[in-house]
């Protein structure tokens, strides 16, 4: 009972937030509605017993992707009024694309009704043991059985990082980085001079 209620709550809010994402006039509001849709989708995943994917949705989509969107929308000076100007002119094309997508869904459902594609049977190496939450099961696989590949992927990311620095880093003229040893090695007698200028002559530096 409570599960059904929660499902309808999350599902309804997901659809509502999704609709408002495309209906909002202000792009920043659109992104905020998108974040709400992600949160509710995460709730649906929890109901399904897929806590890991729920976490992933919140951390990756909300935490990184949506914030990135928000940055892009706020920092780029995009004239959305201009983007929307061609709406009426492109309306037939948009409808046509929507119809194609609808037809694909209908055909897909029909094909499934005729009997789906026969996929291979999983070899069971990734099955979740009954006495474990799926986060723990994924962790066991990632840091146990597949540790070797996990480490290799770490080196892969390091290479990407080093590569980006190698290709973009260059020595620039005119920058004055701090040099701590030089600062420490400097003595007062090197930095100051004691002069006694003659009257009316001024100081030469």
């Amino acid at each position, binding site marked *: 009972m409570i599960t059904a209620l929660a499902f309808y709550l999350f599902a309804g809010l997901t659809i509502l937030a999704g609709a408002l994402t495309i209906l909002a006039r202000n792009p920043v509001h659109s992104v905020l509605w998108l974040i709400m849709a992600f949160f509710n989708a995460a709730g649906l995943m929890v109901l399904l017993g897929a806590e890991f994917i729920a976490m992933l949705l919140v951390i990756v989509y909300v935490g990184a992707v949506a914030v990135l969107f928000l940055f892009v929308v706020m920092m780029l000076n995009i004239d959305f009024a201009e983007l929307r100007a061609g709406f009426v002119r492109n309306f037939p094309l948009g409808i046509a694309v929507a119809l194609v997508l609808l037809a694909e869904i209908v055909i897909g459902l029909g094909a499934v009704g005729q009997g789906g594609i026969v996929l*291979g049977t999983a070899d069971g190496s990734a099955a979740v043991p009954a006495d474990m939450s799926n986060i723990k099961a994924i962790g066991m696989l990632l840091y146990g059985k597949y540790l*070797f590949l996990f480490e290799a992927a770490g*080196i*892969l990311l390091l*290479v990407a990082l*080093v590569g980006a620095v*190698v290709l973009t880093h260059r020595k620039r003229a005119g920058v004055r980085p701090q040099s701590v040893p030089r600062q420490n090695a400097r003595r007062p007698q090197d930095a100051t001079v004691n002069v006694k200028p003659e009257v009316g002559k001024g100081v030469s530096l």
Partner: protein
Amino acid sequence: MDWMQSLRLAAPEELLSISGLVLLLASAWGQTAKDARAVNWLAVLVLAGAAAMVAPTLCQGIGGEAALAFGGLFSADAFAAFAKLLIFAAAGASLLVAPAFFERHGGYRAEFPVLVLFAVLGMCLMVSSTNLLTLYVGLELNSLAAYVLAAFLKADERSAEAGLKYFVLGALASGILLFGMSLTYGFTGTVSYAGIAAVTNAGLSKGALFGLTFMLAGLAFKISAVPFHMWTPDVYEGAPTPVTTFFASAPKVAALALTIRVTIEAFGGQTAAWQQIVGFAALASIVVGALGAIGQKNIKRLLAYSSINNVGFMLVGLAAASSEGVAAMLVYLAIYVPMTIGGFVAVLMLRDESGHQLEAISDLAGLSSTRPLIALGLGSVMFSMAGIPFFFGFWGKFVVFQAAVAAGLLPLALIAALGSVIGAFYYLKIVKVMYFDEPAGKATGHSDMVHDWLLAVSALFISPLGWLLTKGLGALAAIAAGVLFAAT
């Protein structure tokens, strides 16, 4: 799973990754050209050490269960060892010629040998892969390092263009490969080659066939087989020449060994499904590689087409789908690597008075009178690539054709042999330009000792003297190929 045993089996890879990380730290502080040279020599030493660790595996012919590490994710068998030795040799040679080249083009940086080490690590994972996951991680590790290496000369527009082109097309190919892998996984239910073989031996579903086709398309890009070869001439021409030396040798070995593993280990029971694809790619590569090279004016582009052509001959061996065919391919690879390195080292040695690289074929005119030793070295490379009898390159072609004929692919072998005749035309044209044309008198600059030695060693290897090695090389290749077929 016994971790100690696994760590022992993967010791060369651990040596590579740890020394890569240490040298990376060293290069963060050592910014001068002198430090870069030191890091370079250390990297060469590391490669030599890794080769010494790998060699016993090949000689003892270790394979099957005894070679599996990390719960079957990694296989340090004799086949992988054979490919790794070639990779280490090729990468080491490319590192040896790099400092002299980059110092003339605005400074050598220590990141170069580090990236090469990581690329080599990726290639080791590729040739040792026993499942699609290791395959992909290794391939990407190699590719990401390679994209950066291609664009390493930031000030040079051609190098940046080569890097960008390689990156965009390489990412597309990786996507195609990944798509094929996910289809294969979906329709077989497993990522391990042995598991895929167990499922497909009972019958290949349509979906798995699609997966196989897409995977072969992605791999064909990585080995630059026709019709996925378009990037090769542009990238080989634009990339700095030591990097081109590296591209044409080490990753080719790794990607071809990987292709062998996927086709034989994962789809070995469904030979008919991929034999046609590989046979077509082989013939198309031979013909396009031979015809495309004829009109080239730049020696690096010519060598790029020649590498496409050579890949075609090696795929003829794979199309045979027999232990002899794979052994023939490995022999061909072992001859191809010194041939390619010799060719590119000779190109690196062509400098004018002020030390600039010469790349136009017209600059080679009359090289025999100005620099007779380079002309001799490059000439023997060309003779060997053309497959003129008694040069070592001939033996490679011979064993490949022999395997194809033994597998009943007589038409394939015949057309391939005809293709090699077309190829001989442009190889011999280079020899003619060097020996019989009026001297252009451009290539007068001098090169350093390392180049001389590398060219001398590779020229000796591919000269008729190389025939002394046929027995040993053939035996090693047979051991390596035998390990692969013992499992299936």
